[in-house]
C-alpha cells in the first residue's frame, strides 16, 4: 500500500514537473550580456574582431538577403517585458545588428513591436566595430542562434478612465463647437487703429 502511494506521489510530482517545465523555462533568468551592446558601442576598438555571445529580444522583422539575413537584438530594459506591458521605463532601446545565416532565423517565432514582445535569442559570432563587408556598419556576424524564450502577444486594453475622459472631452468639444457656430455673427465691433 505504502509503496503504491509513494509511486503515485513520485509519478504525480514528475507529471507536475513536466507540466511546469515550460513555465520554469519561461521564467528562467536571461543570461546577462558581457559585453553588452552599450559596452560594445563605448569600447569598439577593444572588442573589434573578438568572438562574443549576445542575448537579446528580436525586434521588428527579419530582413532576408540571399542566404543571410539581418536581425536586430535588443538587450535593453524592455528585453523581457516592454513598456506596453507596463514595464518600468528604463531609457532608450539599445541593441546590436546581427548578420546571420537566414536558415538559423527560422526558429525565431516573434519579432517585437507594439503588439508583440519578441523572442529572446542568444547568438554567438564575431563583433565588427566597422564591418568591411557591410560598408562600415557596427555589427556581429553570427554563426549560431539559440532560442532562449519564445515571444508572445501583448494585450494593451483601454483603461476605463481614458475612455471616460475621451467621451467627456468629445461632448465638451461638441458643445463648444455648437456655441461657436450659434454666436459666430456676434462680433465685437472693431474701432480701427
Amino acid at each position: 500500500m505504502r509503496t503504491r502511494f509513494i509511486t503515485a506521489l513520485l509519478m504525480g510530482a514528475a507529471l507536475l514537473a513536466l507540466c511546469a517545465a515550460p513555465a520554469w523555462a519561461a521564467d528562467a533568468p536571461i543570461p546577462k550580456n558581457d559585453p553588452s551592446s552599450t559596452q560594445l558601442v563605448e569600447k569598439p576598438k577593444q572588442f573589434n574582431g573578438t568572438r562574443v555571445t549576445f542575448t537579446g529580444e528580436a525586434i521588428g522583422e527579419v530582413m532576408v538577403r540571399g542566404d543571410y539575413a539581418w536581425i536586430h537584438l535588443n538587450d535593453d530594459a524592455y528585453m523581457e517585458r516592454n513598456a506596453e506591458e507596463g514595464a518600468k521605463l528604463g531609457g532608450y532601446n539599445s541593441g546590436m545588428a546581427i548578420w546571420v545565416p537566414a536558415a538559423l532565423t527560422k526558429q525565431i517565432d516573434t519579432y517585437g513591436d507594439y503588439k508583440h514582445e519578441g523572442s529572446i535569442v542568444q547568438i554567438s559570432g564575431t563583433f565588427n566595430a566597422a564591418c568591411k563587408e557591410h560598408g562600415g556598419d557596427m555589427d556581429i556576424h553570427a554563426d549560431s542562434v539559440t532560442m532562449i524564450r519564445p515571444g508572445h502577444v501583448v494585450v494593451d486594453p483601454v483603461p476605463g478612465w481614458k475612455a471616460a475622459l475621451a467621451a467627456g472631452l468629445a461632448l465638451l468639444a461638441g458643445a463648444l463647437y455648437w456655441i461657436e457656430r450659434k454666436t459666430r455673427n456676434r462680433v465685437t465691433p472693431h474701432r480701427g487703429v
Partner: protein
Amino acid sequence: MIVRPRKEDHLVIGKFTGKVIIGVGMLMLIPLAVSIGFREWDTAVDFIVSIAACFVFGFGVQAVCRTAKDLSWSHGLVVASGSWFFATALGALPHFLSGHGGSYLDMLFDVMSGYTTTGLYMLQDLDHVSMGLNMWRHLLTYAGGQGIVVIALTFLFKGTAGAYKVYVGEGKDERLLPNVIQTARAIWLVSLTWLGIGTLFLGVRGLMLGQGPARAFFHALWVFMGAWSTGGFAPQSYNTFWFHDIGYEVICIVIMIAGSFNFALHWAMWTGKRSEIRKNVETISFFVTLSITTMVATFFLAKANVYPDAMSLFRKVFYQLVSGHTTTGFSTIYARAFVTQWGPIGLIATTVAMAIGASACSTGGGIKGIRMGVISKGVLQDIRRMISPESAVVMEKYHHIRDTWLSDDTVRAAMTVTIAYLSLYAIGSVIGVLYGYPLDQAAFEMVSAASNTGLSCGVTNPLMPEVLKITYIFGMWLGRLEFMSVFALIGYGYAVVRGK
C-alpha cells in the same frame, strides 16, 4: 513707453491661435485612422482624447475671442510663436498617454522636436511604439517642415490679408505666388508630389531588402517624412542604420538634400527654370561648405583608421555630413560612435555643418546657406573695396531666383541673425558644460538642437538634467522661428504686465 495691448489685440491673437490649434486637432485624424486600421484601440482612444482637447481649446477660444479686426505684423508674430507653444502642449498628449514618456516635459521635448523638424527624442522603448503614435511623430515633423501655420493658412484662414504676417512669423518670407494662400498651397503641391515619389522609391527598396509590404510602405512613408522635412525621426531606435543598405541611403540623401532647399528654388525648378539650381547662392554655398566639412572629417577619420576601406569611410562620412548639413539628423552610426569612433575632429566637422544648416524658407534650420553666401560676398566686397582706388564704386551681386545687388543693409541683416544663432549655440553649450559634459559634446548637442538637426552624440537622453531639456526646447523653438516671433511673444507678455 510700452503700450499695454488692448482687449482687441488679445481677441485677434486668440481667434487666430484657436484656428491653428483646430488645424492641429484635424491633423490628428490621420494617426487616429492608422490606429483604427491596425486595431490599436488604446492608441486610438489616446488620439480621441487629444483631438477633443484641441477642439475644446480651439472652439472655446474662438467662442470667446470674437473680433472683425485683422492681424497686424506684431499680432502675426505672436500668433505664430503662440500657436507653436499651444500646439506643442496639446500635441504632446498622445505621446504622454501612450505611457512611453518619463514626464510631460519629455513629451513636450519630443513634440517641439517634431514641429521644429529637429529629431531629438525622449520617447522610451521606441521599438514597441504603436503604428498610430509613429504616424503622429512623423506627421508632426512633416507638418512642422511645411510650417503648421502654412497648414492653417491652406485650410482655415480663407484669404485674410493678415495671413502673410503669420506666415512670415513662422520663419518663411518667400512669396512664390502673389497671394500668400496660393503660396501655401504651392508649398503643399511641391511637398505632396515629393511625398508620392519618395515613398514609392523607398517602399520598393524596402520590399527588395526583405521587409513585408505593410512595414515597407509605412517605413518608406515615415522615412520620407523624416528626410524631406529634415526632421530625422525614424520608426526604429536604430534610425536609418536599420536598413543596412547603400541604395536606401542614396535615396535618403537625395530626399534630405531636396528637403533642405528653399521652396522658392523648388518652385523655380517646378516652373521650368532648371538653371536656378546651378546659379542660386544657397546651393553654391551648400555644396562648398558640405565639401569642406566632408573633406576635413574624411581626412581625420582616415588618419584614425576608423573604417576598413575608402568606400566605407566615404559612405559613413558623407551620409552623416549630408544629414548634419541639411539639418535632418538621420544616422547610420550609433549616437555614441560620434564620440567613441569619430573623435573630436569628426564631432567638430559635423557641428560646423549643422551650425550652417540648410536653405532659408525650407524645412531645415541653422544659420542658412543664403546668409553664409551673403556674408561671404560681403567680405569679398570689402576686400575689393580695400584694394580698389578710393573713387571706384565696388558692387557685388548675388543670385537668388533673380540677380540682386548686395547692399550693406542686407549684409548687416544676415550678420545680425548669424550672431543671434552663434550666441544661442554658445549659451546652450555653456549650460551643457556647466552640467559636466565635455565642451565638444555639449556644443555638438546644443548646435544640433538649435539648428533643428537632431543628431546626437549621447548627451540627449531621458535622464539628462531638466534644465538642459528646457534649454534644448527653447533652442529648437528659437532656432526654428528665427528669433523674431519668439521675441515678439516675450515682448507681448512684457507689455501685458508692464505696459501703460
